């Protein structure tokens, strides 16, 4: 089993060009720490010492370059850029001695630790892949003889297989359900229809609650109905079909019909289209 599932090492890790020009291609990177690590290697910046500042600048320049080329940048990279900008400011400003804020030194040390840790793991991964491998450099018995009950079962199933089959089964089972569940949420379209129908018969101020569908369960579905109805109300108010009133912050919201004729026409048009 093991030999048919073996993998080659990835010995051709994408490396930046050796002439110093940094090729902007995020495809080759495994996230911002990896970019920093590559930059550090490229510029021979010692990550164990606190020469983090030039590295931070390199990274910020790199990010600026990517953004200038209008390439899509994952949020991770921007988060790191923000963090490094902050680090830069902590490194450049004198230590204010505030217990609240970390010193630049502490931050740089944390970054150095993380860079070193990733570097070590990247190396370890490559070392692993470079080892003698089963099925490639050494081999199992070619003609195994089977013992009864050497393994606890005569059936061959792996945990992976068990879980994969279960996952597939659940997905199959969930396939339709997910769709139906999504519809449980009360949509703005529904709310619009309902509001337009109900408004005709309510010329006076009525609480928003009065317009919610009946028999709603509590929780997210109920909240979605409330939100959708409010959104529908705002939409209709924008169209001049109703008025909305709220007298105090977080106070109850009231709706009132504005133009009976217009609303009726709207309902009619709606039903004509349907």
């Amino acid at each position: 089993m093991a030999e048919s599932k073996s993998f080659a090492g990835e010995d051709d890790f994408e490396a930046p060009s050796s002439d110093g020009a940094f090729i902007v291609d995020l495809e080759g990177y495994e996230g911002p720490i990896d970019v920093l690590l590559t930059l550090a290697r490229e510029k021979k910046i010692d990550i164990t010492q606190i020469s983090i500042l030039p590295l931070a600048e390199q990274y910020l320049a790199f990010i600026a370059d990517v953004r200038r080329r209008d390439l899509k940048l994952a949020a991770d990279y921007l988060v790191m850029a923000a963090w490094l900008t902050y680090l830069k400011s902590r490194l450049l400003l004198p230590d204010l001695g505030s217990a609240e804020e970390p010193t630049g030194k502490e931050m740089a040390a944390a970054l150095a630790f993380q860079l070193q840790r990733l570097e070590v793991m990247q190396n370890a991964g490559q070392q692993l892949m470079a080892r003698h491998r089963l099925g490639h450099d050494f081999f199992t018995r070619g003609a195994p003889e089977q013992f009864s009950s050497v393994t606890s079962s005569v059936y061959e199933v792996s945990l992976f297989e068990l879980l994969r089959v279960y996952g597939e089964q659940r997905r199959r089972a969930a396939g339709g359900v997910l769709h139906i569940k999504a519809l449980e949420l009360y949509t703005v379209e529904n709310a619009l229809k309902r509001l337009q129908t109900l408004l005709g018969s309510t010329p006076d101020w009525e609480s928003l609650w009065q317009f919610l569908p009946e028999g709603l369960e509590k929780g997210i579905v109920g909240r979605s109905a409330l939100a959708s109805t409010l959104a529908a109300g705002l939409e209709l108010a924008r169209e001049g079909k109703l008025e909305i009133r709220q007298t105090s912050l977080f106070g109850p919201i009231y709706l009132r019909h504005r133009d009976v004729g217009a609303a009726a026409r709207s309902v009619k048009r709606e039903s004509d289209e349907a």
Partner: protein
Amino acid sequence: MTDIDRHHLRLLEALLFASAELLSERVLANRLPEGADLDGLLTALQSDYAARGVNLVKAGKSWAFRTAPELVQQLNIEVDVPRKLSRAAVETLAIVAYHQPVTRAEIEEVRGVSLSRGTLDVLFEAGWIKPRGRRRTPGRPMNWGTTDAFLDHFGIADVNDLPGMEDLKAAGLLDSGVAISAYRGTDDGGAEPLDPDSGDGDRF
């Protein structure tokens, strides 16, 4: 025996070990470095293994390692190729593992199809599931659960260590567009009875 001979002997030994079939003397001669004394090597190797648990045996002009005949009986060697479990059986096993104690009807409900005769039997005979008493509901149906042999086979310490839905998803084993279920956190309360993760509150 010279160092060269010893090296040749190791090569011969490795070749015979790794081969799926009997190897003919012609093939062996081709595989060994030129100048190797095949006859002498085979004789030496055969005598090395004569008293061991494995012997080098000759069949016509071909050679192979075989378990020593007198041990075969004690070791209960079978030529059986391990069987594959049917997909229905694997699915059923997974459902029993995740939903236990679970009745036959519930398994059918989860799978959406009726369980063919013998599916539970196969799992029972394999020693992976066992009856776990009867449900106190009309008809008093039998509950099924997994055994210690099940845990052994799959190398799991405890049934609760089976990955939850979120873990399966994270591992790419269960993909699904998360819809409303992802937002249920605050208002569920009505967990479905068959929810494998009901109980451990680590889902959301």
